């Protein structure tokens, strides 16, 4: 499933620029500790987290996550989104908690 399809099905709010690279999603990783995500997430995973500081951008980019979904409607500063846009990191958001989001990703994408 593509990022755009997931965003539509799960009604995710796109926070970064709309002209993103619509990558294929092949897995999902839930976690807030950056080194765990770095070491355990797989390329093309959706990364679900409540972390919202600027360091999530480097982690998503370097670990090659397909996109970041911030759960629980956690607020994100503009500076974070600007950096994400510069590094081609897609950030989406949802009011759902991480667990529920994971379930929805599973239902929608079969992963």
């Amino acid at each position: 499933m593509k990022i755009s399809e997931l965003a539509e099905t799960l009604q995710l709010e796109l926070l970064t620029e709309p002209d993103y690279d619509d990558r294929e999603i092949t897995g999902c990783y839930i976690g807030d500790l950056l080194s765990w995500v770095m070491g355990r997430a797989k390329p093309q995973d959706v990364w679900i987290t409540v972390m919202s500081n600027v360091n999530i951008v480097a982690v998503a980019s370097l670990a090659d996550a397909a996109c970041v979904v911030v759960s629980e409607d956690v607020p994100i500063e503009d500076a974070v989104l600007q950096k994400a846009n510069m590094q081609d990191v897609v950030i989406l958001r949802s009011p759902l908690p991480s667990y529920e989001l994971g379930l929805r990703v599973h239902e929608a994408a079969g992963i």
Partner: protein
Amino acid sequence: MHKYYKIDGKDFSIAGEASSDFKTVLKKLGTPAEIVRKVAIAMYEAEINTVIHGGGGECDAAIEKDKIVITFRDQGPGIADISLAMQEGYSTANDKIRELGFGAGMGLPNIQKYADDMSIETEVGKGTTVVLSINL
């Protein structure tokens, strides 16, 4: 090919920039994606340690014929017990650092996992040098 980076020890918001830049360099050179990813993960963890534990320092990243060799140097507090520091989950990071999502104690284990070779030279009160290499 050779890149040199100064690593700022105060501004956590730019931590990871050397790794991001070097990843871009490797991609432009057409390095295979799996290798780029291994370098990116190992280098990021070493860079973060230089920032949060070492108080900043410098980094040398060299692309050699058959491997990539990356060296991080700092003049921070050093590591008293390397085998303890290498254990998964061991961290001396403070609460402020943990709030940012760092300090899981998985950095050195991640370097071990993703680099083909790593070595640590350290002296308490003097500083730490971490060298990691990834085969091409």
